[in-house]
């Protein structure tokens, strides 16, 4: 009996040890960062820095260590977070230089198409033509963003496609993916920048395959509205 007790004690002791060990592991898995948790995230965008300075926030954090910016983030005037994100969506196998070149060429094509339109149209029509490729990209992404998504759920042994509202980030991701997938569906002889430019312009006008895909999804969600309550029950 005594032996059993000692054994038990040992076990509990081991448990305590294991616990500490596990907690240690957990803290490691939670923080892969090179920087300790005391470091705060700074900003590299000049306007935000200015805001910090005006509000006096800068004085407060003056002596707190700050994490550095990523190497593709710049305080340049030409930096755009959405463009950066879209570049990463285009990227395959980590070839970022290629992805960036593709997007730059796409922007060039967009600009050329729009400028030729601009030069050939009348003065009144000229004001309506958007020439900034970045704005066109923003517009295209905004037009392709879905609001709902179908989620397969198993209820009573049957899988139902249940319409579910989606997060902002998920919808932005889907929009970008649809545009890129639409651009990739092309003839072998056509280069991606050409097709992508065309898709972007179409999407910015609320046309094109990516926008249609969004509309189809919405239509399906509408059709499956009867299953909506499966989300909760």
């Amino acid at each position, binding site marked *: 009996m005594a032996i059993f007790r000692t054994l038990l004690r040992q076990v509990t002791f081991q448990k305590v040890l294991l616990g500490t060990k596990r907690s240690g592991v957990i803290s490691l898995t939670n923080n892969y960062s090179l920087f300790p948790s005391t470091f705060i995230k700074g900003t590299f965008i*000049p306007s935000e820095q200015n805001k910090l300075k005006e509000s006096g926030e800068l004085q407060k954090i003056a002596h707190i260590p*700050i994490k550095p910016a990523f190497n593709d983030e710049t*305080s340049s005037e030409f930096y755009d977070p959405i463009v950066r994100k879209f570049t990463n969506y285009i990227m395959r196998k980590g070839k970022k230089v290629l992805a960036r070149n593709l997007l*730059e*060429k796409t922007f060039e094509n967009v*600009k050329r198409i729009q400028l030729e339109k*601009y030069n050939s149209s009348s003065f009144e029509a000229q004001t309506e033509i958007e020439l900034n*490729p970045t704005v066109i990209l923003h517009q295209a992404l905004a037009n392709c963003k879905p609001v709902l998504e179908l989620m397969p759920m198993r209820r009573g042994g049957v899988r139902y496609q249940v319409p579910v509202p989606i997060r902002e980030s998920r919808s932005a991701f889907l929009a970008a993916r649809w545009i890129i997938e639409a651009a990739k569906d092309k003839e072998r002889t056509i280069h991606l920048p050409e097709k992508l430019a065309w898709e972007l312009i179409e999407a910015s006008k609320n046309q094109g395959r990516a926008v249609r895909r969004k509309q189809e999804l919405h239509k399906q969600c509408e059709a499956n509205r009867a299953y909506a309550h499966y989300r909760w029950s």
Partner: protein
Amino acid sequence: MVFYTQSLLRRITSGHVRMFGTALEAIKVPEEPPQTFRTIENNPANHTIDHMNRFYTIAPEIQKQLFQHGGLTKFFQKQVKTFAECSILIRQPAIEIISYIRQSDYSKPPNKYVLYGEFGVGKSTTLVHLIHYAFATRKILIHVPWAQNWFSRPRETANSIVHEGNIDLPIDAAAWLVHFKNQNHYLLSELDLRVTKDYAWSHRETTSNGTPLLEMINFGINRIKFASEIINVLINELKEASRDGKCSTMVAIDGYNAFFSEYSAIRDDNKKVVPPSRVSLTHAFLNITKSDWCNGIIVVAVDILATKDRRESYLPRFLLNKEGFEHMDPFLPVHVKNYTTDEFEIIAEYYKNRKWIRDISKQGLRELQLLSQNNPYKFMEYCTPL
């Protein structure tokens, strides 16, 4: 902390710039913006130092006549299409050469000008300006858009009939004849230049004394087998005609140092590399750049990209090699440089006018200037995705 302060400093200046920028936009009148970067003097024959750092426009029909078969760089051609006009900045090297051309003595052998400079500084575009000048002053144009094309991408090769061991490029030669005819047919028919000797191409085909040059060129275009030899003859005839004062001639060759390279993609029957010195086209165009004729101008551009074997320096003697230097000597080396700050501002203004770049603050322009190091090609490249 340093990171913050630096970017904050940058931010302050950019704020000032923004204010200034919006003020400029307010002034802009949509109907007829004041275009200080342009000159209305579109005839290069009248260009002087007063027109420097201004844009002038080449009329579309002239552009089509002169540069339909090459002459404008690939990127510039795209810009012409996008901007719906072919405008060129009047720069110092072009004005300098034009002033020399005006002064020089045409009873003497032609003066030779060699444009040199780093990659993308505008040597070819300066050449375009000078070709337009020659066209405006009614000179016969012997223009090679990019000599390297013949040696790196020959379309067809054949052994020469006339010169043993030489190689003809029939299609390329015929294409050049088309280019020559396109550039000069008005002037040739107007001046009524005629062949001065009898030439027998084969048993049946001959060109007799007194035939118009245009007819011989057409023959060369139709019978591409003889095109290389016809170029040879044509160049000799033009030299003769210039010497006699019937016409004056301008030679413009881009990538001239390709003729003195050791490398080419042309192979003979034994699959051995044929250097450019054994290609019949080379002989023709080296012949026209000799000093044994008068009443002409020779402008050539040397470029690092024109040879595969000599790429260490962009300076003319190195690129021409000793052989080429002795062939050209004495020549006037003209350095084409990167943009000056004035030129850069003019270019930026032009791009803004053409909507190629929009709403860029002064700070952004400064960033582009530093990034491109004032190099025209790089600046053009950096502006494309904006």
